[in-house]
């Protein structure tokens, strides 16, 4: 409320609002009666004004006693007549307590303080007390009355601001609620975002995450873990109780429990778990025990890595290392045997060469010795050829080139000039076999050497290579040699049984050849119409078309 024109801030004395107290009359030119009339009229006008205003107004003398009060003042304070207030100390009457009922000493009253200093004051945060003992929030202004430079009293104007206060409170509440609602919304959004981040992390994790309890229940498991164990869904997995199953005797859960209870956590524990279908998966596990305030374990939170592939590779590596070491050992031993064996064979042959009538009885025995020694030679040769193939990696092999290489190798040892060699290769240029090149080469060398030997002096060797079906290709080796009897056919692929006479069978035996072919998922069979009718060896090998591989790579790059 702006500063009002104070109706009494003039040279008048304090005015009684219902005109009970006479005024000091001014001296001078007017007759006493005229002056009294004018005064009365003025008083009446002022009274009218004072009693028609909506604000409550009262006056105070220097002692703080009420000198006048208007109707609104009476009404707001709950009094009927100004006599109830006039002459009373207003502070004690209406202003003696704070809103909470505690005592309000007059020295602290701002009205009192103000007009002590000759100043006015404006207060909005106090209450005034009604006649019925109830208080109401009020806004008041006080103005000092000054006459001839001296403060002679004060006028106080006040309003009941109960409604205003209520409205203010209500507004406050609303804005507080709004602010809270805003905060809540923000918090919820943040929570949702955080939940989503967590869920993404949890589900898209590259390793399995879980929460289990000491008594074997599964509370949480992310999709990686569910899949790792071969279940279709979390619920499917959660049906399992870990105290009953899921672990194998060699890696019992008790071991895990022991470590985690002792140390509070487990780091990099390698063990094997059972999948839904009973197969094993090797895992590396780290977990922490979550305990309550009294130290009781509530649950285990852990991560799991599938290391099955890694373990298999380790095994392979180990066995291939072992194999390589063994291979070297075997090769060394075999080489050592070459000399003594050469001596036995050579000397026995020489003796047989020099047999005369006198030593004829010994011929048979010498022949036996020679035969045995030559069997040793064959075994040794097979062994050394095999050890050559150990430790060599599988590579993509071009079949026509390999066959030609094998033919060259055989012709180096045997005169192939009298043999007609026909190579029919009907393979697409991108057909590929992946295998140990040395091993496969020795198989063909073996087969071609056999064919050559079967053909004694002259003959025809026909090699046909073609696609058999979408997964296998076929190599046929047909010779026009001495053929194989039914009896021999049956024993042909048996190890260490050589169909050849004495020293003719050398190099890789058919049994070893068969073994190599079967290792690569292939098959080998032999046919012969009988002795003198030649023989046909058929080798089947799995193959891939290089085109397919390129296609796959392209897809990967685009996807």
């Amino acid at each position: 409320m702006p500063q009002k024109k104070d109706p009494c801030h003039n040279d008048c004395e304090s005015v009684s609002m219902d005109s009970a107290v006479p005024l000091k009359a001014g001296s001078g030119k007017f007759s006493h009666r005229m002056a009294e009339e004018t005064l009365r009229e003025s008083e009446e006008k002022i009274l009218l004004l004072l009693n028609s205003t909506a604000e409550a107004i009262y006056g105070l003398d220097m002692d703080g006693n009420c000198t006048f009060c208007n109707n609104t003042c009476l009404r707001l304070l709950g009094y009927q007549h100004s006599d109830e207030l006039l002459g009373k100390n207003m502070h004690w009457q209406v202003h003696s307590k704070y809103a909470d009922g505690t005592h309000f000493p007059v020295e602290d009253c701002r009205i009192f303080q103000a007009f002590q200093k000759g100043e006015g004051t404006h207060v909005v945060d106090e209450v005034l007390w009604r006649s019925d003992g109830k208080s109401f929030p009020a806004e008041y202004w006080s103005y000092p009355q000054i006459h001839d430079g001296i403060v002679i009293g004060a006028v106080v104007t006040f309003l009941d601001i109960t409604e205003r206060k209520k409205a203010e409170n209500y507004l406050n509440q609303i804005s507080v609620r709004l602010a809270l609602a805003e905060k809540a919304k923000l918090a919820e959004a943040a929570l949702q975002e955080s939940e989503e981040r967590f869920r993404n992390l949890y589900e898209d994790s590259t390793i399995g995450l879980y929460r289990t309890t000491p008594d074997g229940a599964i509370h949480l498991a992310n999709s990686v873990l569910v899949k790792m164990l071969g279940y279709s869904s979390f619920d499917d997995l959660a049906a399992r109780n870990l105290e009953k199953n899921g672990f194998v005797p060699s890696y019992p859960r008790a071991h895990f429990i022991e470590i985690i209870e002792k140390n509070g956590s487990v780091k990099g524990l390698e063990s094997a778990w059972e999948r839904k279908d009973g197969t094993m998966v090797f895992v590396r596990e780290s977990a922490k025990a979550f305990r309550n305030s009294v130290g009781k374990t509530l649950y285990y939170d852990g991560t799991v890595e599938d290391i099955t592939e890694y373990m298999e590779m380790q095994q392979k590596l180990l066995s291939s290392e072992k194999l390589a070491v063994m291979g070297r050992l075997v090769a060394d031993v075999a080489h050592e045997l070459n000399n003594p064996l050469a001596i036995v064979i050579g000397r026995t042959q020489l003796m047989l060469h020099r047999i005369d009538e006198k030593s004829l009885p010994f011929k048979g025995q010498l022949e036996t010795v020679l035969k045995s020694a030559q069997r040793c030679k064959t075994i040794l040769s097979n062994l050394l050829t095999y050890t050559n193939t150990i430790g060599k990696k599988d590579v993509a092999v071009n079949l026509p080139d390999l066959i030609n290489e094998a033919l060259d190798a055989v012709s180096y040892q045997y005169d192939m000039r009298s043999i007609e060699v026909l190579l029919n290769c009907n393979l697409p240029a991108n057909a590929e076999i992946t295998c140990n090149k040395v091993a496969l080469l020795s198989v063909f060398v073996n087969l071609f050497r056999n064919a050559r030997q079967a053909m004694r002096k002259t003959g025809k060797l026909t090699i046909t290579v073609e696609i058999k079906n979408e997964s296998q290709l076929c190599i046929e080796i047909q010779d026009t040699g001495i053929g194989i009897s039914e009896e021999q056919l049956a024993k042909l692929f048996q190890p260490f049984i050589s169909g050849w006479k004495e020293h003719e069978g050398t190099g890789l035996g058919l049994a070893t050849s068969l073994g190599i072919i079967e290792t690569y998922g292939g098959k080998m069979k032999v046919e012969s119409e009988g002795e003198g009718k030649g023989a046909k060896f058929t080798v089947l090998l799995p193959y891939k078309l290089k085109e397919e591989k390129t296609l796959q790579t392209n897809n990967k790059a685009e996807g």
Partner: protein
Amino acid sequence: MKTEFTNWKILVIDDEPELLDLMKDLLEEEKYQVFCASNGSEGILLNEQKNPDLILLDLRMPEMDGIETLRNIRKTDDKVLVVVLTGYGCPDTIRDAADLNVSEYLSKPFENEDLVSIISKALEQ
């Protein structure tokens, strides 16, 4: 069966004494003149002294192996014929000898007749 010694001289180098003996016997049967050395250095010396037509050389020998021996011989003698004796499954060593002018390879244990036929074939060239 030959009755007289031929003019052919053969030097056999092998660290296995009994094998050396065997080969000597075998080749002398065929009426070749045979000299024996039981290691690389001896072989190099004998080659210079006796000037053989053909050397039968074992690859696997301690100290100086066959390849080194041959390399040394070839430094001063590129004429002498060489037949190399190998164990089964030694493709690498054969590769190593590729530039040393080897006439033939024979793998141990060998058949006596194979040895004889290879040597006669080599000498006939």
